[in-house]
């Protein structure tokens, strides 16, 4: 992705480049469209409930307050306790899904990239096409399966079902990264006497760590944001993950919009931070496969 940073040589030198101006105007419009809703979320989250429910609205909060955030992060009251609990559940489920998914996907992706065993193409494309099916059509049989396995209302049911989308995606992404590692390196190791497995562990694994990081971020964000399975499989309050949890405790009574906006903000912070820090990898994972390098 370093290539994205390389400058395009300025190709046009005319008095006024209308296309360039059109581009600027368009970008300004897009930025407003993207940023204003997020800005309004943050502005609302620092208002009191009274200030938020006014017409016409207070464009700028007259008495900004962090009370909504304090309430959510304070383990001594009920709302704070539940919110922190959901936060922890989300984190723990996403982390386990990611680790399990990557451990299973790494050897599979490597085999799809390097070996030519019969049925390889068919298997690989069935992995790929799985990505296209929505969670909802798997819900009914998986619900029965989880009931049969006694996993309804456990995090195990979430981790197992999150693999239905996490695993195919991880295999697909990782295969793209393995394809870009020169096979000559392994050939050299084999000539020096390494077994095929040793070449994989000692040569390919270290080189593919960017790929593994990218895949892990992707898988973590996917699990963190997942809603359908969690909504269907969990009914016990203390098991909920964030996307389902915040819905539950804000619609019980009259909706507390500033509270909901601050909960939404806090829920988005981990994925946005993860994305900003590892943006390079995230973008690479997103475009891997579609763009031939």
């Amino acid at each position: 992705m370093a290539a994205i940073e390389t400058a395009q040589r300025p190709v046009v030198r005319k008095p006024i480049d209308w296309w360039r101006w059109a581009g600027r105007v368009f970008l300004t419009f897009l930025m407003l469209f993207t940023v204003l809703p997020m800005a309004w979320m943050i502005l609302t989250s620092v208002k009191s409930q009274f200030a938020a429910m006014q017409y016409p609205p207070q464009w700028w909060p007259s008495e900004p307050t962090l009370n909504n955030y304090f309430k959510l992060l304070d383990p001594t009251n009920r709302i704070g306790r539940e919110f922190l609990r959901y936060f922890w559940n989300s984190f723990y489920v996403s982390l386990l899904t990611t680790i399990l998914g990557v451990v299973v996907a790494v050897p599979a992706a490597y085999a799809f990239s390097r070996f030519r065993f019969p049925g390889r193409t068919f298997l690989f494309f069935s992995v790929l096409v799985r990505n296209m099916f929505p969670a909802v059509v798997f819900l009914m049989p998986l619900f029965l399966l989880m009931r049969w396995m006694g996993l309804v209302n456990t995090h195990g049911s979430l981790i197992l079902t999150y693999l239905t989308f996490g695993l195919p995606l991880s295999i697909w992404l990782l295969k793209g990264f393995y394809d870009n590692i020169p096979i000559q390196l392994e050939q050299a190791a084999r000539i020096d006497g390494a077994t095929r497995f040793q070449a994989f562990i000692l040569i390919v694994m270290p080189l593919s760590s960017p790929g593994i990081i990218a895949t892990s971020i992707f898988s973590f964000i996917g699990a963190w944001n997942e809603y359908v399975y969690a909504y269907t499989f969990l009914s016990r309050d203390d098991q909920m993950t964030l996307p389902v949890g915040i819905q539950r405790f804000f619609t019980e009574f009259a909706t507390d919009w500033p509270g909901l906006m601050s909960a939404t903000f806090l829920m988005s912070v981990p994925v946005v931070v993860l994305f900003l820090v590892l943006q390079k990898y995230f973008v690479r994972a997103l475009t891997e496969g579609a763009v031939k390098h």
Partner: protein
Amino acid sequence: MSIATQQAASPPATGTVQKRSGFLSRIVAHRTDYLYVLPALIVMLVVIAYPIYYTIELSFFRTPPNLQMRDKVWTGIDNYVRVLSSPVFHEVTIQTIIWTLASTVISFLLGLGAALSLHREFVGRGLMRALLLIPYVISAVAASYVWKWLYHSDFGVIGAISVQLGITAEPINFLDNRQTVLASLIVVNIWKEFSFAMVMLMAGLQTVPDQLLRAAQVDGANTWNRFWHVTFPHLKGVSMVTVLLLMVANFNSFIIPFVMTGGGPADASHIWITHIYQLAFGRQQWGVASAYAVILFIVMMFLGYFYVKALTRGDEARA
């Protein structure tokens, strides 16, 4: 991708290919290869192959509302008839098509515009790209709540702005109105996903050779002609994959309609997925919902076929 293609052409370094032997002996020769994919295959069998099989089976049965599947009754293609002949199905199908096409086309065009505008180096470009990507990264649940608040019928900021600017006399009730609800949800969906198209096309723009653009300029081509005759042909492959992925994602979206309106008012914002969910978990009609899901499978298989074709297009050309 290109490396994999070269490997396929030259003899593979690992494992041996025995050209004359049959399928079975090739499997035996490659038996250790399967160890690498085995864990993945087992997981996939349990959580993917089995559900698909079971959905197809259920689609031929009438299921009891208490979900004790022992008591299900064979009804042949009755469920399919019920789905296809229901008026709600037709209404929801039209909404699904509008939702999928409008979201895909507009997201793609906005993404293309953004990618072209961001292609040139300028101060703050990285920051802009990052900001534009944030809606794509955050949860659709978060996006739904934020927009539900923006659209709020009494205290929503969009309604207030339109009154202040004199566009409407009163705040518009976006989500409780059959005429505006689908369009309002499509806006949220576009907000959430156009930057995906942007990132894909930005990566695609990297593959356009600089020399060609300069050569075209020397030959006197203007900005539009350079885009249409040089840049765009190079983007064709990426564009195809992007459009297909957007279509699949939109066709499969669930969270935005489900969280924001639950398909209402009066089914006006239902799409296939939310409708299936409602049939299965709202009305406990699992047989009907399964038949619906099988129809959806078939549509997805078509899209999947084009997706695989779009992805392998380059490989075939080179091989």
